[in-house]
């Protein structure tokens, strides 16, 4: 279990988290979402150890040992690597630090990455694949993936997701990913955590969330239901409600199931409207 307890964090005077708590059981695949700037990437960085809480603790599973970073695979949205190194030098550096003789470069060979190319010459997608390849070679127990998969092309995205799925199947790795667009990964997600102003606004298993968030098409706001956000059209209005409770007294309404992207958009739309 990854446990965050009473965590405080700020950038200078700007507080991002105060008294933040979160537990993630081993092997769970979580989606972290929320509006831009809410602290998704910051939370991943804190767990990855590249940022440090001002107060509070982050306790890693015992299986990760005394140096958890050895078992954490972190792909940041900045795709931070030594850009002036060649691909071969970057891989050798990574191997040196982690004490590996070599890495399985199967993924890199899939793409058109040359060993002699400088990292800065790689496209965003190629850099993501290079980083993923290096991380997978570590056999991580905790995978932290920031919003990188939108910026890569469909082919590389497919490779990325296939490798991710294979890793999850092989090793029941814990995954925490920050994302705003989910149609690729919806089938993987087990739990959705929505952040709002440094706190957890929603924390539900995905199936529960799908049962609780519905779109209601109706001429007027449905009475007795909490509306997250709404959209008006000339002929109808759409109301996104949470939690949805079946109410037989409501007439002339249509209840529509939502996919994960629509659910998150409903929450985020509500935040922007507020």
């Amino acid at each position: 279990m990854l446990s965050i307890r009473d965590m405080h964090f700020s950038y200078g005077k700007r507080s991002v988290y105060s008294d933040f708590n979160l537990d993630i059981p081993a092997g769970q695949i979580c989606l972290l979402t929320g509006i831009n700037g809410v602290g998704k990437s910051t939370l991943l960085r804190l767990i990855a150890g590249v940022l440090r809480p001002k107060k509070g603790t982050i306790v890693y599973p015992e299986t990760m040992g005394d140096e958890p970073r050895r078992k954490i695979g972190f792909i940041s949205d900045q795709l931070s690597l030594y850009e002036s190194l060649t691909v071969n030098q970057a891989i050798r550096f990574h191997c040196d630090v982690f004490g590996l003789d070599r890495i399985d470069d199967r993924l890199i060979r899939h793409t058109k990455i040359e060993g002699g190319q400088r990292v800065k010459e790689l496209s965003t997608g190629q850099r993501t694949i290079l980083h993923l390849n290096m991380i997978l070679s570590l056999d991580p127990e905790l995978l932290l993936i920031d919003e990188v998969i939108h910026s890569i092309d469909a082919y590389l995205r497919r490779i990325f997701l296939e490798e991710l799925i294979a890793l999850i199947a092989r090793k029941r790795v814990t995954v925490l990913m920050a994302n705003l667009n989910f149609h690729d990964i919806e089938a993987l997600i087990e739990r959705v955590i929505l952040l709002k102003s440094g706190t957890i606004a929603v924390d539900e298993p995905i199936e529960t969330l799908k049962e609780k968030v519905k779109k209601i098409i109706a001429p007027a706001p449905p009475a007795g239901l909490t509306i997250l956000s709404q959209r008006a059209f000339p002929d109808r209005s759409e109301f996104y409600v949470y939690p949805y409770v079946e109410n037989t007294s409501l007439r002339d309404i249509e209840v529509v199931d939502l996919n994960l992207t629509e659910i998150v958009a409903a929450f985020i739309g509500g935040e922007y409207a507020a």
Partner: protein
Amino acid sequence: MLRKEFRDALRRLAECLVLLVAVPLGYFWDRALVHFGWRFADIWSAVFAVTVFLFAAYAGASLFLAEKKDRALEYLLSLPVSRSKIVLAKIGPRLAILAGLWGVFSVLGGRAWDWSLLVLLLFLFFVAASLSIAIDSVVIGVLGVFLLFATFSLSSPTLTFIAWKLGLISSISSVWIGWTAAGVLILGPFAAAFLLVIRNLQAMPLRLQMRPYYRLALPSFLVVIFLILKFFGDYLAAMKRMN
């Protein structure tokens, strides 16, 4: 990691060694134009001295250059390596090359082992290293190092004078007292600030992590400047009277 840092240090050395082009240029300039009668060995010695001093400052000031230029600080901090090991891996190869340069300079210059030169080079290197995290531009970093070096040069006789006035030493020409005091007053707070920043180094804008510099290094630097402004004139007057 050590291999990468050694390669990085060698790259900095290569950049500094470009200065040696000035040796044949200076020689031919003298022979063809100005006819000062400079010997090749003298030109070599002077240019090499400048190169060694420049490398000391540049190697220190560029300690975190790769991370800043490549935006690789986040990657570096995500690796299972402690902050102290990161700093040691960066300082070790640079110090080794600096020691080698000092050896070459001492031997070729016929100075045997010039320990005071080594102390000066180490002072320059560590001051530069202390500034490396705080200052983004290497050029400004190197200028900052030479500003601190100038401050050190003025503060060491000033502090010797103060120690002499206070009766702590019997002779105003005991330069080691002033050197040590100036070294401690200038390098100490900067080094402490650097180590504190490194100990808590995080992947966030460095300007948000500079508090130890404002709290330790800046006040101490201002005190040294104050002492220079207040007592350096008296020191010069005392020296004039003694001569």
